[in-house]
């Protein structure tokens, strides 16, 4: 017992054998110039194509065999010196065949020669052929026959500039011919769905899709006709193609053909006929995937717009955006059961389109988002992850385009779309927004925008009702909160009043964050506030901040490592403050140096102390420049480094960290360059010698890191010496 596929293989093999057998006799007839026999055997050969047993795929194989043989036959027909019959008579002769399928294949073959001979106008012959082919109503056989007709006629259409062009308006004949063949083929193709052996729907659709390109080929031919200019496309070609598409009422065909139209015809034609093309969309079957069709159209137009700035006026002229927008609205309205992802995909495409075509029209962007909100609000809860992805794409598109969150913040519908995201996605989107701000280093400088921004990222700021707290990933959470902390630094305005408002808003939002978020966010807020206080000359407020900071340091920070971090923070912050008077400043710097010298480890002490040197030297125009106290700090650091060295010797019988000395040397060089008179070249010279001695002492362990550090420091000095000029002179006296 054979199964279906094996049966098919067998039938195909039989068919091929039949073709080969008859082709053999046909060749003999051709070789002996025997027309009668040639006709007889070619008709018998073509009779193999009358089979109903093969699937389209296998039938195609059989067809191709016959096709190759027909090419040989055509050569014979063409040469009337071989058979002595005029092409006109030949055209009649082949019609004597009793079976219709072989008869029509032969007729098309002779017809092709008939046109070439120019004994009759191309249009007459073509019209006759396309009309006679009606006799084959079997879908597969008809499709292949007509595809043969399309194939042999392709280069013989009475197109403009073609050698077959007739007197007047023959392009129209060419177009009519192709359109008619297209229409008939499409009808046959659609009919396959309803006819043929009963089988499962999927199988039939698969078989049909194997044949789709035979139908689509006609559209391709149409697009290649020189004479089909915009005018003709608009007036004839498109309306007639669409008429067929709409009337066939078949979802597979409609989807394929719409896509085909979009792909084969030029962009500018689409642009100029948008209304017609879009007008067909709501008339398609409800099961047609219109969204993909429209998306592809918009993608094409977007690319077209991106291809050259010259074409943009065209888009404006035809009001492409509003037409597309309307069409999408209608489609979504008409297709009630379209899944959310479909609708949103459409909006994404429209958004991409408008971003490319009308980047200046923020109102368009907002309009699209608004429409999307409207659609989303009809859906109780968006749970489809693909839909969610599309929403993210929708929201990310403007950010990517404008590289500027500030622009997005002016879009009133932006936060409303975000409201429809689930908690996870909402956070994800908030992160995208923050990253965009960071990447572009955009400063958000008005309170209103800050307010909108916090509305957007509220998923990160506070616990949302219904969120499952246990699900939180610790690392993700940290990263999110760190991002928020970084974000706060980007909210800045030089105007104290506005800045205050901003701080208030930030405070309002961050304070509801709960104990897990506050440690991340508050410090940023504090720094921000401090910066504002500094900027606004409100000394007492700033002083209070520092007082509180020192209090916290004393009372709350017990861990030595945390102390190191904290003291460096304090030093760094204090260094940037210029709001303080001499007295307050002295108090604070004194405190800071004091805490520095009292850190647990010598090395930490040393580093904190030399960092303190910067508190007395602010490299701004009117910053404090107290060279003496800088030197004091550095000397103190040196002493600590010495002590550390000795302690190390005692403790382990080996040298301590020489690198501390090198670090201090670098500070010396920094201040030397900055023009601190207290730092002299001889001091630097001395320090270098000291380090060299330390390095060479037996007790010191070789330390490659310190060696390298020293070497590059010395190289730097060497470089400065050689550079000449003022700096060269300064470094002149240092001997290495």
């Amino acid at each position: 017992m054979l199964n279906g596929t094996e049966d098919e293989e067998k039938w195909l093999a039989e068919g091929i054998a039949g073709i080969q057998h008859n082709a053999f006799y046909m060749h003999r007839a051709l070789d002996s110039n025997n027309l009668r026999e040639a006709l007889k055997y070619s008709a018998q050969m073509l009779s193999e194509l009358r089979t109903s047993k093969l699937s389209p795929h296998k039938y195609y194989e059989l067809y191709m065999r016959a096709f190759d043989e027909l090419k040989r036959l055509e050569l014979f027909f063409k040469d009337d010196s071989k058979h002595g019959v005029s092409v006109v008579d030949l055209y009649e002769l082949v019609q004597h065949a009793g079976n219709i399928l072989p008869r029509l294949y032969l007729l098309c073959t002779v017809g092709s020669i008939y046109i070439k001979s120019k004994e009759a106008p191309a249009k007459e012959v073509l019209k006759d052929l396309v009309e006679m082919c009606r006799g084959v109503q079997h879908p597969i056989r008809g499709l292949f026959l007509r595809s043969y007709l399309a194939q042999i006629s392709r280069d013989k259409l009475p197109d403009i500039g073609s050698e077959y062009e007739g007197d007047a308006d023959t392009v129209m004949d060419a177009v009519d011919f192709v359109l008619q063949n297209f229409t008939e083929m499409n009808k046959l193709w659609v009919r396959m769905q309803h006819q043929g052996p009963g089988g499962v729907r999927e199988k039939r659709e698969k078989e049909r899709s194997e044949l789709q390109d035979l139908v689509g080929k006609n559209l391709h031919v149409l697009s290649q006709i020189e004479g089909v200019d915009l005018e003709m496309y608009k007036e004839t070609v498109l309306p007639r193609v669409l008429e067929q598409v709409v009337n066939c009422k078949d979802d597979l065909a409609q989807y394929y053909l719409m896509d085909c139209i979009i792909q084969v015809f030029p962009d500018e034609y689409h642009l100029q006929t948008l209304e017609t093309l879009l007008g067909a969309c709501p008339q398609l079957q409800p099961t047609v995937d219109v969204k993909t069709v429209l998306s592809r159209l918009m993608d094409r137009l977007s690319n077209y717009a991106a291809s050259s700035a010259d074409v943009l006026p065209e888009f404006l002229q035809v009001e492409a955006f509003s037409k597309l927008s309307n069409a999408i609205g209608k489609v979504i309205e008409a297709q009630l059961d379209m899944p959310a992802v479909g609708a949103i995909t459409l909006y994404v495409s429209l958004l991409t389109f408008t971003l490319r075509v009308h980047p200046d029209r923020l109102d368009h962007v907002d309009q699209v988002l608004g429409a999307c909100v409207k659609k989303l609000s009809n859906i109780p809860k968006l749970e489809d992850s693909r839909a969610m992805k599309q929403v993210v794409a929708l929201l990310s598109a403007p950010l990517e385009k404008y590289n500027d969150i500030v622009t997005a913040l002016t879009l009133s519908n932006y936060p409303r779309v975000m409201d429809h995201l689930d908690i996870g996605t909402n956070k994800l989107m908030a992160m995208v927004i923050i990253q965009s701000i960071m990447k572009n280093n955009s400063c958000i400088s008005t309170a209103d925008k800050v307010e909108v921004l916090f509305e957007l990222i509220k998923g990160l700021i506070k616990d949302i009702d219904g969120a499952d707290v246990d699900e939180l990933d610790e690392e993700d959470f940290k990263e999110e909160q760190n991002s928020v902390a970084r974000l706060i630094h980007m909210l800045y305005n030089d105007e104290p009043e506005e800045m205050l408002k901003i701080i208030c808003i930030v405070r309002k939002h961050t304070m509801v964050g709960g104990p897990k978020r506050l440690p991340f966010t508050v410090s940023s807020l504090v720094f921000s506030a401090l910066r504002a206080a500094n900027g606004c000359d409100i000394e007492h407020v700033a002083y209070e901040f520092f007082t509180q900071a020192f209090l916290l340091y004393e009372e709350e920070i017990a861990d030595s490592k945390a102390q190191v971090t904290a003291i460096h923070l304090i030093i760094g912050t204090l260094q940037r403050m210029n709001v303080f008077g001499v007295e307050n400043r002295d108090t604070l710097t004194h405190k800071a140096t004091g805490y520095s010298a009292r850190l647990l480890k010598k090395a930490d002490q040393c580093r904190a102390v030399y960092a303190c040197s910067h508190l007395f030297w602010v490299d701004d125009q009117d910053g404090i420049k107290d060279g003496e106290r800088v030197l004091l700090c550095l000397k103190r650091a040196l002493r600590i480094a010495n002590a550390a060295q000795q302690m190390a010797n005692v403790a382990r019988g080996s040298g301590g960290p020489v690198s501390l000395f090198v670090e201090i040397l670098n500070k010396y060089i920094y201040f030397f360059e900055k023009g601190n008179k207290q730092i002299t070249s001889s001091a630097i010279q001395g320090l270098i010698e000291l380090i060299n001695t330390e390095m060479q002492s037996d007790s010191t362990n070789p330390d490659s890191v310190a060696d390298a550090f020293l070497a590059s420091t010395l190289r730097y000095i060497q470089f400065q010496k050689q550079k000449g000029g003022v700096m060269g002179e300064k470094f002149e006296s240092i001997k290495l």
Partner: protein
Amino acid sequence: MNYLVGAFKPPCNIFISFTDGRSRKQVPLKKENGKTVMVALFQSQENIVGEVVIEPIHGKKVEHNGVKIELLGQIELYFDRGNFYDFTSLVRELDVPGELYERKTYPFEFSTVEMPYESYNGVNVRLRYILKVTISRNYVSNIVEYQDFVVRNYTPPPSINNSIKMEVGIEDCLHIEFEYSKSKYHLKDVIIGKIYFLLVRIKLKNMELEIRCRESTGSGPNTYVETETLAKFELMDGAPVRGESIPIRLFLSPYELTPTYRNINNKFSVKYYLNLVLVDEEDRRYFKQQEITMYRNLEAS
């Protein structure tokens, strides 16, 4: 009886020839023995002119009671074997009784002969024209020689030639409308037409157009009807849907057709029909037959 004489070798040879034999058109004619020979073609009202040559063998003497030539139009019904109905019989005496010693030539002429019927070779009937030369003899049988010829009559194109148009169907199953551009066709004509499907509720497989020839012979209770399908021409492959129209273009030249013969000498008729046949997937056949008139057209032959 004549054949018996042949066994004894006739004492002379008889040759019948037409004066314009070389220029006259020859057409094939199927003889009783199945062989096809080429014979002269005439039409009604023509003069049939020629000569008969009698040539005694080896100087033998042929005694006779007179020589004559007859032009016979005969209808032969096969079921009535042996009986010929002569609807035309013309005689010319060529010689008075006497003796023949040597080759002798007799010219003959039948002027403007009425030959209203065409030569026909059917299933049950044959209509033929012959020239028959008889040398009458005493005591022994006559010497007879035949010469067939073919008559074809041409008719001008009919002044009225309506199309055949008809709507037929099976209620709620199949409704079609068909149209043949003419009701009268000459023998090399083309049948042009179309079939329009108004309603299709059965699964059709294909559709063909047949040319059927109906020969009826005899009359009354002894009527014999023989129907032959001369052409089967596939018009459509597959199943159409409502609204489809299928073209018809059938060239008649490849088929061996005759004009329509109506009641020829009250002996027989030959009529032609177009039979449109639709076949469904269960091989049921639905058909509609329409008579067409065939005629012989001078230009086209």
